């Protein structure tokens, strides 16, 4: 049996080329995707969408680096035929520079991700919650299969449509009468489970005016399976200016 000798450095140069081309294509696609992002309609949604898009740039880069290496080596180092009996000369069991680089990068990227977007995003979300002196409190009651909203300080009770002012932080107080549900307005970029026998809070600061009719991302949608009516457990939402909110309150309170 003759052993096949390969110039591995030359092969590596080819891989670098694949990486460059792959990164250019991949990141262009992501740039396009991020440009077409659905509505980001709250301060919180900005934070969670930034986390998501950041991780996308990174995921595409890692996909190209690792996936590119797999595809490239499978093609570059393939046997000539099914009956090829040539044994490759490279029989190294390990190669420290590769292993060490890999380790350093894996640990480094992990630490980095935990800090950003992980902890940074969390701290930002928590900070909004802590800094809000006078949130608009809205009691949310979930039950199979509808949502009801009350505004205790405004004297608005049991409405089935969620009307909120733009730019003010809202403290949603979440309770359920029966099973678990999940309070989610896709445009607001955060969700919270509503758990029996517990009271949960979700803080949201809407920034985009609009309503379910103008953009379906602005809707309350139950996001935890709760039985037959789960898909239709939605509620219309309207984000209005502070002035309009006042008039709405005036005409809906007792």
């Amino acid at each position, binding site marked *: *049996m003759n052993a096949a000798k390969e110039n*591995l450095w030359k092969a590596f140069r080819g891989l670098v080329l694949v990486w460059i081309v792959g990164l250019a294509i991949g990141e262009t696609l992501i740039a396009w995707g991020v440009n077409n992002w659905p509505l980001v309609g709250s301060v919180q949604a900005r934070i969670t969408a930034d986390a998501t898009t950041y991780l996308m740039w990174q995921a595409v880069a890692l*996909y190209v680096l*690792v996936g590119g290496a797999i595809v490239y080596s499978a093609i570059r180092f393939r046997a000539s035929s099914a009956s090829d009996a040539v*044994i490759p000369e*490279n029989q190294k069991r*390990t190669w420290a520079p590769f292993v060490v680089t890999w380790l350093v990068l894996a640990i480094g990227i992990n630490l980095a991700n935990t800090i950003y977007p992980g902890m940074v995003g969390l701290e930002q979300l928590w900070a909004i919650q802590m800094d809000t002196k006078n949130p608009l409190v809205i009691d949310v009651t979930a039950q199979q299969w509808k949502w009801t909203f009350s505004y205790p300080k405004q004297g608005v009770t049991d409405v089935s449509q969620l009307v909120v002012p733009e730019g003010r932080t809202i403290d949603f107080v979440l309770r359920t009468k029966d099973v678990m549900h999940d309070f989610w307005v*896709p445009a607001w970029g955060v969700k919270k489970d509503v758990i029996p026998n517990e009271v949960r809070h979700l803080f949201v600061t809407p920034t985009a005016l609009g309503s379910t009719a103008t953009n379906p991302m602005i809707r309350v949608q139950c*996001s935890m399976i*709760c039985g037959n009516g789960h898909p239709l457990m939605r509620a219309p939402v309207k984000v209005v200016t502070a002035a309009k909110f006042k008039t709405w309150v005036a005409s809906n309170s007792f």
Partner: protein
Amino acid sequence: MATNEMQAQALNETEGGKTSFAISMLFPLFRATLWGLTGYFAAAWITAALLGSVIVNPLPATVGYIVGLVGWLMGSGLWEGWIRRAFGGAEAPSYTGVERYFRFGPDSKSTAVRYVVFNVVAFFFAGLAAMAIRVELLTPDSTSWWMSEIHYNMTFGIHGLMMLLAVAASVIVGGVGYYLVPLMLGVRNVVFPKLLGLSWWLLPPAAFAVFMSPTIGGFQTGWWGYPPLAQNSGSGIVFYVLGAATLLTASVLGAINIAGTMVYMRAKGMSLGRVPIFVWGLFAAATILIVEAPATFTGALMDLSDMILGSHFYTGPLGHPLAYMDQFWFLFHPEVYVFALPAFAIWLEILPAAAKRPLFARNWAIAGLVGVSMLGAMLGVHHYFTAVSPARMPIFMTFTETVSIPTGFIYLSAIGTLWGGRLKINAAVLLVLMAMMNFLIGGLTGIFNADVPADLQLHNTYWVVAHFHYTILGAVIFTWIAALYWWFPKVTGRKINEFWGKFHAWWFFVFFNCTFFPMFIAGIDGMNRRVAIYLPYLHEINLFISISAFLLGAGFLIPLANLVYSWRRGEKAEPNPWGSRGLEWQMKSPTPYIPFPEGTEPEVVGPNDNYAAGSKEPFVWISAPSK
């Protein structure tokens, strides 16, 4: 008969019995079915009569299930093959011929073959459920001519539970692992062969009950069974809990065997450093089951107790549903590694033989497998970041992200093995490469779910549905089919059809990605999961997904036909068709009843992945004095 006795038993012909198949050999199957169904209906009916209730109510169904399960097991041959002896009776002889495939017995190879059959059947029906889901989602409205929302909920619950516990949990561990573990370790059987035999017979009644759950009212919780919805959306939850617990029991019985066999029964000279990587992968998976299953078992039974016995662990004004989540995910997060680690290990088992290179950085790969299994125990909370207090978020985010480090070692090892080798790409290797590419997407998108800020938006959307299908369907099922192709000559002595194998691999890869990649986008665009009805702005993308899904689903008929046809008519394979240095290929194919005759033992004298030109064989056969 004790295991070592059986191993030492001198069979004149190691081939086992030579009688050809006769219909009467199916007798244990018929008897098991009869005893099972009779037991079920009798017990359920008596319970119902005593309680003045009806047999579809939760408590009668529970009692019926337990009695039916015992009846089925006894009928399968457990009675005369094992239990009768405990009562002073005689033990039935060990069947060594073709009849062992149809009854309870201690032979790990026929058990493994039965696993393959069971997995294929379960995959087929759970796959039909997936198709039913995609029909419903062809249009945004409630598609009432097809099924109601209630039936839709039951369908994805059954689909999910069956795909996980009746398919993913045992495709590689069961069908491939139980066959290969003894051969790769150089022994004749596993350490507790009867427990392993028993494990298979637990599967059919459990899966049958789950599929039949709509007949007693179904369950609408999806595969999570979260209380208190579990207790108020149909008696079928009883079959969900009991079916899941039974399937898990089977997994645990297998896990004990894998761990025990690897620890106690290796061939001479097989130090831990020389244990084949696939066995390491199975071992890592087995430890997960052994350590983490109890918490989840308990949770499932407490959930059931709330349903049938009126307890209020998780329900009622003082119940704590969050406690169920903790218990549920304690095993069911790491359970995904029970699926994935054996698949990783298959890649690393196949690639060196295909590329004619040693396994690169083998110790790192083992650290990766074991590392994932250890870290995996600490992550469950990432499945409900939206339910827990902020205090629990940072730690579980950090741990979850950390698991990507040991996972990365698998890729490090695989790429290092490919690099500078000479890769022969047959259908199995092609599927392995595709599985690696798919898992890469599954793994990278998992980082988004681990990152709490991103997850607060993505959780419970189609993003997650895409993510876990990439890991399970895209990696585990691709690898399963690869493993069936690769070791097919070992089991049948024949080869699969390479052309149709590769053709289907491409079909699978293309339509898999067409089906599941758009789901990431649907999730970002605000489509939540588990909905029969969605908003019209999501119609186009769902239409595309559904049509791709039908093509993807139909494609599975190709490997089915390929395997069945090749089993009967395939090209005869040489003893070691891939030129592998694995010990399993040093034995006769198809594997005789006793894999290697009495008086001989393999001894390991070198690494089993040394492909250098002129390197010596890693095993020698030595004669062992009979005990």
